[in-house]
């Protein structure tokens, strides 16, 4: 089942399927190893709900919902 990255609940894991972000952000995400096929874990949401902390390849990254909305993940049902 495919959904946006920002739809993941805290503690939920997913696998990235595709990215529809603009070049600048794409480059930045690539530097952190965010590519199709990478496993992502939603660690926690900020108290206001935005940004959200994810674990990717051992790194903890905070992303704004506006940006993670353009990243799609596959979640095991």
């Amino acid at each position: 089942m495919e959904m946006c990255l920002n739809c993941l609940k805290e503690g939920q894991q997913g696998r990235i399927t595709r990215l529809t972000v603009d070049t600048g952000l794409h480059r930045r995400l690539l530097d952190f190893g965010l590519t199709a096929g990478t496993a992502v874990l939603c660690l926690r949401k900020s108290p206001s709900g935005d940004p959200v902390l994810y674990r990717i390849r051992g790194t903890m990254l905070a992303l704004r919902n506006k940006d993670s909305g353009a990243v799609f993940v596959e979640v095991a049902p």
Partner: protein
Amino acid sequence: MRKLCLVGNPNVGKSTLFNALTGLRQHTGNWPGKTVEVARGEYSYKGRDYFVTDLPGTYSLSSLSPEEAVTEEYLRGEEDFILALCDATCLERSLILVLQLLALGKPTIVCVNLMDEAQKEGLDIDLARLEKCLKVPVLPLSAGKKEGVEELRELLRQYFDGFLPVPSRPSLQDAAESYVQKAQDIAATCLSEQKGKKPNLTEKLDAVLLHPVWGYGVLFVLLLGVFWLTVQGANYPSQGLQWCFDRLGGLLWRGAEGLSLPTWLSGALLEGIYATVARVVSVMLPPMAIFFPLFTLLEDFGYLPRVAFLTDHAFASAGACGKQSLTMCMGLGCNAVGVTGCRIIHSPRERLIALLTNAFVPCNGRFPALLLLITFSFGGNGLRGAFCLLLCLLLCVAMTLLTSRLLSKTVLRGEASSFVLELPPYRRPRVGQVLLRSMLDRTLFVLGRAAAVAAPAGLLIWCLANLHLGNESLLGWTADFLEPVGSLLGMNGALLLAFLLGSPANELVLPIFLLILSPQGGSAGEIMSQNGWTWQMSLCAIVFFLFHWPCTTTLLTVKKETGSFKWTALAALLPTAFGALLCLLLTAIFRILG
């Protein structure tokens, strides 16, 4: 020349290794904003000198931010031996940059740092295999414990002396994605996790520090704590320094008499220049010497990105970036440092917003004056004073957010930028190193600035105070001239003139003010009471202290960072406009209430 450079991701321990290699034989740029300046140092080993450059942390060579572009530019231009640093706890991610570095085809050694941390987390790295995959030497390090540093020195010597062939690979340009894939493959073969991994410290701490309630609570308490420590802790050293300078001043006076210097000359030199510089240094140095080490300790520990995480939402809705909260914290120490620190914000639009609003946060130089006004009119022992200061700070934060929003709706219109923030694992801060570096960098720099800025200002003020028009000094005459504007703003002409003359450094405003009111001297409290100073005037003065044009050093820094007169003018205008408006408003309210 034996030159080498340290390259790697942020938080990988480059600075720790750099310090371990060079010790005290190093210097940074004039503003020690972390990872923003290139640090250069040297060390001697077996009779030869080695020159080391610590490049800013970067995630990639084809980077988008000017801060990271420094690395790419440097490597393109220089022929240094590259020390590519990896984080053993984050091997896969670190390898992405390493692979890009190896593709440059320059002599490289890969150092895997933080081996001790990896061991604690139950990670096991097959270094021999890694070396085979990367085809360059791989050295394990725990730079914080100085483990592996001697081996590194020895290995470098062997390469430079020609005992070993220089390690490099043919330069290959590859698509960005393939580096990620390669890094993953290599890490998969070399990395293994032991069973029974303990839950790590970072996760446990973040559960509290990023908690919806406790997170903000801790932030609030920490800020209050740092504030209180700075304000209280600086008291005695400031008095001590002033005492020393007074003693020295006495000796200088006697020397001047001995040399039969004309009174106007000794007056100008000793009362004008020396006394002013002495005062600025004794007021300015102790708080900075406390604040910046504390701030750097928090940064070393890894807490600051958490602050950006907790505050990003508020800033994003103002059209700015969460990292602005960090530049504001730096501005608390010194606005010019805060302005330079804005380089950590990638988006040019958001960087400008942070730049232009940095002066809305009061720097260390304003604390003593603020505290004096608070104590004089609103009473207060140490804690109460700090609490009032915190209220002022909250007002400053609110105004910053308001102005940021205003800017992003008018002159700096644009979309909220993309925001990718890494939260590094918590690390034990290197206390000794931090304190020493902070003190050295700060001390030398502050002393330099004090002399450069306070000296001419002191001379000018002395001249104005001692040249007379009729039976009043020029200083008093100008103060009277400014009285109408001053009282319109709820203060008086003397304070307004003090603000103007104190433009080089906020520390000067209060002393100048007291000097104008009472050229003979006396305690602040006495002088203010004798001149009819009321609590309403204190309130307006406090507001204007918080919101007025930045000091000339800050303005010069803004000009340097933006390269534009337009933005510098706006940086001066914004806080002044708000300060004046607020003062006018307060005065009107006071008048209405009778």
